[in-house]
């Protein structure tokens, strides 16, 4: 046949030839049709759903904080683990730490922590005074504060801040406008009160206070003084919480009845069994001052000094330390405030041996497994918190309502409930499938919609998405400090102000009382006291 074709003239193509050559081209048409059908269906579904849910599709514009005007002069109280992190978030890291980041970035081009730190906004602040009871930490704080150029080893250093032996002397200094408090919890109340009296603005770490009584004293002092107070819940800066709040306001999950939040950690560090510095001894640590607020004094104990979170004398345990992060996350979304009652239970179930790995010391008092139930009968829901310091099973945060439920963390996912009243029609018509999310929010993604793929959600949940592209990761702690600094400049109230702090402080104290006194603690809203 082909020979024949050739014989009849090779330059001219006959019909048969053309048909063979183009035989598969119509497949492209089928592809176009199929793609059009599928896209149209997806579009109709997401459009209808979006109309139904009425969530804003735009990402909140990120407006950088302003840093103009005079430099604000900061005094740092406490340069332990958290103090070091706060200083770095404020722009001051120890040269050795910067060198370390630099070396690791040189070794591994994917390690962007050094670049991120360099790109972090300059807040236009100076650290003019530092106070730490451990000489080694105090010296490190001085060196970090002087590292104004974010240099590594042998870099050019700036002016050296003054070291104060007591926080009272630091608060009395004229060249300090505001203080960052990153001490153990047993110091928070008196330092904040004294700072307020001295007219210094305060950024303080959680837990808010050590005891119930201190909650009132701190609130009154801050309010009377008019200082700008920010409690250290950097979760206030998390984008997905803002979306969660919008979803609640738009009634996407209907009437809320149960909220479940948790903490899970499974390491010595996570259980507050920190390293003990080899140079710590009664000559390098002002142990007497450390113990000053304690009713019963203890002999020098490096375990108590470094692992203070394990004892009620200094810390607030899972309730003040970690429940508060979860409480604050929910409180900023729901604004539910102080619960009507709290019950709590737990125990030292894992870290109960005198010797576990490196952990050889007195046994902790503070439970490593903890459960708190907060009741809100006026709002018709319960808030359940449960925590383990010996399991990594991350259960996330869930808010459950009659019409749906939302799970959130760095991302936000909302599902409709199979028995929902609101979505009954849509579920029947097939517009909503209760197995699939009706709304997904992944920060950094331009559009939030219901049809984010499973893969996308997988990657986002593991922090693999939108972390490197565009090159910029922003530390929430940095934003939280930046917000506080801007509020000082503009004389405004920051997001985690004294009222928010009081609510979470009381809730945490109620939980601690409930567990330690083995009873349910009730709160009288009008009298503002425990009954």
């Amino acid at each position, binding site marked *: 046949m082909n020979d024949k074709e050739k014989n009849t003239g090779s330059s001219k193509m006959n019909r048969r030839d053309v048909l063979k*050559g183009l035989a598969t081209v119509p497949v*492209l048409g089928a592809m176009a049709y199929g793609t059009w059908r599928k896209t149209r269906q997806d579009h109709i579904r997401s459009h209808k759903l979006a109309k139904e849910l009425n969530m804003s599709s735009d990402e909140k514009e990120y407006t950088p904080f302003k840093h103009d005007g005079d430099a604000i002069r900061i005094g740092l109280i406490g340069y332990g683990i958290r103090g070091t992190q706060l200083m770095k978030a404020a722009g001051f890291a120890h040269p050795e730490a910067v060198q370390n980041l630099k070396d690791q970035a040189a070794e591994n081009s994917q390690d962007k922590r050094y670049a991120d730190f360099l790109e972090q906004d300059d807040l236009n602040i100076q650290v003019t005074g530092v106070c730490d009871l451990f000489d080694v930490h105090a010296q490190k704080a001085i060196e970090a504060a002087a590292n104004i150029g974010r240099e590594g080893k042998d870099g050019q250093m700036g002016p050296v801040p003054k070291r104060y032996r007591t926080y009272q002397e630091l608060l009395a200094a004229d060249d300090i406008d505001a203080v960052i408090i990153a001490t153990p919890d047993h110091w928070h109340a008196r330092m904040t009160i004294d700072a307020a009296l001295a007219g210094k603005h305060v950024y303080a770490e959680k837990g808010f206070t050590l005891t119930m009584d201190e909650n009132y004293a701190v609130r009154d002092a801050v309010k009377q003084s008019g200082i700008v107070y920010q409690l250290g819940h950097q979760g206030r800066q998390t984008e997905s919480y803002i979306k969660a709040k919008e979803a609640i306001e738009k009634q996407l999950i209907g009437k809320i009845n149960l909220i479940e939040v948790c903490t899970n950690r499974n390491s010595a560090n996570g259980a507050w069994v920190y390293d003990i510095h080899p140079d710590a001894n009664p000559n390098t640590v002002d142990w007497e001052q450390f113990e000053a607020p304690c009713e019963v004094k203890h002999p020098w104990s490096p375990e108590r000094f470094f692992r203070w979170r394990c004892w009620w004398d200094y810390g607030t345990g899972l309730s003040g330390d970690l429940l508060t992060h979860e409480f604050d996350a929910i409180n900023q979304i729901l604004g539910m405030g102080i619960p009507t009652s709290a019950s709590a239970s737990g125990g030292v179930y894992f870290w109960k041996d005198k010797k576990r790995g490196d952990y050889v010391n007195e046994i902790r008092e503070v439970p490593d497994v903890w459960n708190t139930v907060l009741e809100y009968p006026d709002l018709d829901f319960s808030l359940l918190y449960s925590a383990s310091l010996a399991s990594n099973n991350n259960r996330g945060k869930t808010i459950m309502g009659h019409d749906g439920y939302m799970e959130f963390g760095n991302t936000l996912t909302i599902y409709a409930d199979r028995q929902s009243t609101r979505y009954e029609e849509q579920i029947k018509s097939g517009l909503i499938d209760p197995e699939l999310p009706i709304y997904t929010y992944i920060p950094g993604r331009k559009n939030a919609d219901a049809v984010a793929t499973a893969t996308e959600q*997988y990657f986002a949940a593991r922090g693999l998405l939108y972390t*490197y592209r565009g090159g910029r990761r922003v530390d929430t702690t940095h934003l939280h400090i930046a917000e506080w600094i801007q509020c000082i400049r503009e004389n405004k109230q920051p997001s985690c102000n004294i009222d928010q702090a009081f609510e979470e402080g009381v809730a945490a104290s109620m939980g601690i009382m409930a567990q330690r006194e083995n009873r349910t603690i009730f709160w009288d809203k009008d009298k503002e006291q425990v009954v």
Partner: protein
Amino acid sequence: MKDTDFSKWQLWSLVILRVAIGWHFLYEGIIKIMNPNWSSIGYLMDSRGLFAGVFHSIAGNPALLNIMDFVNMWGLILIGAGLIVGLFTRIASIAGMILLAFYYLSHPAIIGVNYAMPTEGSYLWVNKNLIELLTLWVILLFPTWKTIGIDRFLFKKK
């Protein structure tokens, strides 16, 4: 010109196979182009095995990542369309094999490795990327496009 010496059934089974692979490539490309948020970053970051470092560093370099995304999207579309209509089919087959080799090397089905990305089956050493790659090799060695495909016209001129 002489058509290939395949029987009718041999010829059409191979053409259908070629079109099916082309369809898969083309749709993967179209779906990526239509999603403005699509990026290979998650896929690259999820890489494991011997070459994981290479793929991770591509993901870590925004400029390289953009190139990778572009090449991947348009590569899939051109290869897919090429295989379907039989245009520059030889080049399309080879390019397809290269692309699949990258996918295979970035996510090899080796022992002791788990991926964040969910898979719909179970694989040991041989996975669907490898099978598709080997299938393209067959397509390459059996030039169906000389009979069914636009290449027929190009070959004819010669």
